[in-house]
């Protein structure tokens, strides 16, 4: 009904005036700044992309920008060698099998916990929360030996799990969840905490239970936060090398794509140019995740709820 309609300004903007000029200039400066910064930021990526289409002898003898002028000596060698890697398909499958639960589990559990930290009262709440933030600083390398020892003691090794007909990735899922939870809870509870309390009270009077409030109010309203969290957690897990090696190992049947790709490079670092192609290949999935979730970053998810 009262949808604001932009007042027609064409008549005034068409006229040449200092105001008109400064508006135009301001716009121009903005676009130049945005595009300039973006391009500058992309230089390393562009360099990598071009390098991935160059022959090794060209890579070590000249800069990537020289490829942009004739003679154009591009090659698909790096990509074809990469795709020839023996178990790329298997490791792609493994990466999905690792990354999806290792994202779903910590994000879901973090959402549960963050809801409690933000909107429930319990003894020690603030201190536990603080401790969680502090745990972000624990260097993961220190945890490998004690945690693996415990997992072996509990029989949670890939071999035994496979023998029992369970996914060998379970310890890795749990590890990624454990390592990812402090950040996830921290991010989400800060977001949840900022939700207007009136909504919760209103829902309480309306008769919504804890579960209903969580699923029908908190989650839908936190979509941007959850989307960013999903992206980050997925990225970290997808690109992880060391944690996977520690908890499931690098055997072909369980190795994620990072392990397979990094092992393309020879023991002395020969053929490291394959990593350039590998970097782009392994970037595809996280980028698809990012692009598909980007539409959830919308303005004013809370608009109209509590502001007059």
């Amino acid at each position, binding site marked *: 009904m009262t949808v604001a309609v932009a007042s027609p300004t064409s008549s005034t903007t068409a006229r040449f005036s200092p105001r008109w000029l400064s508006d135009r200039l301001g716009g121009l400066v903005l676009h130049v700044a945005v595009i300039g910064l973006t391009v500058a930021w*992309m230089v390393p990526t562009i360099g*990598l992309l071009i390098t991935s289409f160059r022959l090794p002898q060209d890579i070590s003898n000249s800069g990537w920008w020289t490829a942009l002028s004739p003679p154009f000596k591009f090659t698909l060698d790096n990509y074809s060698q990469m795709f020839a890697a023996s178990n790329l*398909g298997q490791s792609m499958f493994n990466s999905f099998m690792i990354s999806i639960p290792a994202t779903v589990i910590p994000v879901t559990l973090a959402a549960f916990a963050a809801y409690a930290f933000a909107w429930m009262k319990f003894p020690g709440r603030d201190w536990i929360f603080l401790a969680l933030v502090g745990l972000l*600083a*624990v260097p993961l390398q220190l945890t490998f030996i004690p945690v693996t020892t415990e997992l072996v003691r509990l029989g949670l090794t890939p071999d035994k799990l496979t023998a029992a007909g369970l996914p060998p990735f379970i310890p890795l899922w749990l590890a990624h969840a454990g390592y990812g939870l402090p950040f996830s809870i921290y991010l989400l509870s800060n977001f949840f905490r900022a939700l207007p309390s009136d909504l919760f009270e209103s829902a309480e009077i309306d008769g919504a239970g804890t*579960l209903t409030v969580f699923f029908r109010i908190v989650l839908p309203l936190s979509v941007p936060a959850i989307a960013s969290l999903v992206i980050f957690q997925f990225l970290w897990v997808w690109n992880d*090398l060391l944690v996977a090696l520690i908890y499931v190992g690098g055997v072909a049947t369980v190795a994620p794509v990072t392990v397979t790709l990094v092992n393309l490079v020879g023991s002395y670092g020969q053929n490291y140019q394959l990593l350039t192609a590998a970097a782009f290949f392994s970037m595809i999935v996280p980028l698809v995740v990012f692009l598909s979730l980007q539409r959830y970053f919308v303005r004013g*998810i809370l608009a109209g709820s509590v502001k007059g």
Partner: protein
Amino acid sequence: MDFNVLLTDLPTLVAVVVGVPLVLAAYIVGGEYLVRRLPDKARPAVRPWIWVAPALLLVTGFLVAPAIGTVFQSFEDRHGAFIGFQNFAAQLTGFPTGGAWIAIRNNLFWLIFYTLFVLAFGLLLAVLFDRVPYESVVKSLIFMPMAISSVALVVIWKFMYAYQPPGQPQTGTLNFILNTVFHQDPRTWIQDETQLLGLFPLNDLALIGAAVWGIVGFSLVILSAALKGIPADLLEAARVDGAGEITIFRRVIFPLMMPTVVVVGTTLVIFALKAFDVVYAMTNGNYQTDVLANRMYKLLYNSNDFGGASAVAVILLLTVIPVLIFNLRQFRAVEARR
């Protein structure tokens, strides 16, 4: 290529697609069902624990228990005997260049520059991008480095920092620019300990630069999400009131984004303290670029000095405390406001 993978990995597939979400949903619905069976009075006392239990359990297993073990180990020698503060003394001896001091100094640099650059760039880009119609495109492009693994990131930046002797055609992007645009001799960015302004070593900044490049997408995405949370009419009202764009940023946007800036800032400070990948892969701490996490890694896996590594880790954990106190005050303030 065959299609066997689906058959052989069927349990995994089923577990991933059906099992995991099912278990998670069943847990919380079941938990709530049990809570509702409880007498009215007991519910508020039990309910929060149902919601936080799985998270706390995992965190305890994977982080708390090892962290406690670390604290104990930091007081023990290689054979597990208690030796008081000797491990700490060994790390903190020989100020300003001995023990862990170089690493501490560099972590300080990381703390300042990494956090500041990433926050500032993220904020700047978020605000600028918010005003252009092709926002999602530029945002994705800036985000791309986030999707690059740390192994590939190091490869990229070795290309950026590559060095050839003066007079030779440069293969590194930065030296090429330095040479052709500024007509200067190439630099060995990663090895060059020259101190800018007499304080900040060039190679430290070069390492930090590579890490910043890789993480700006993180702050951009979160800050931009927060920016989107600011009601448009508030900005319009400020514009109608005649505020300039810079004033609007300073007086309206920034204060409203403050809680998010604190979250991102805290995370970055901790990332800076834990900085490892880039340093390990590019210099392994040589040329005075060591950082605490790399030092710890070396003590742990090269020296088998668990006590020393634990002492470094404890130092690292202790430095986080001021950040925590700041956070406590911040979220108590948010709590009080509602």
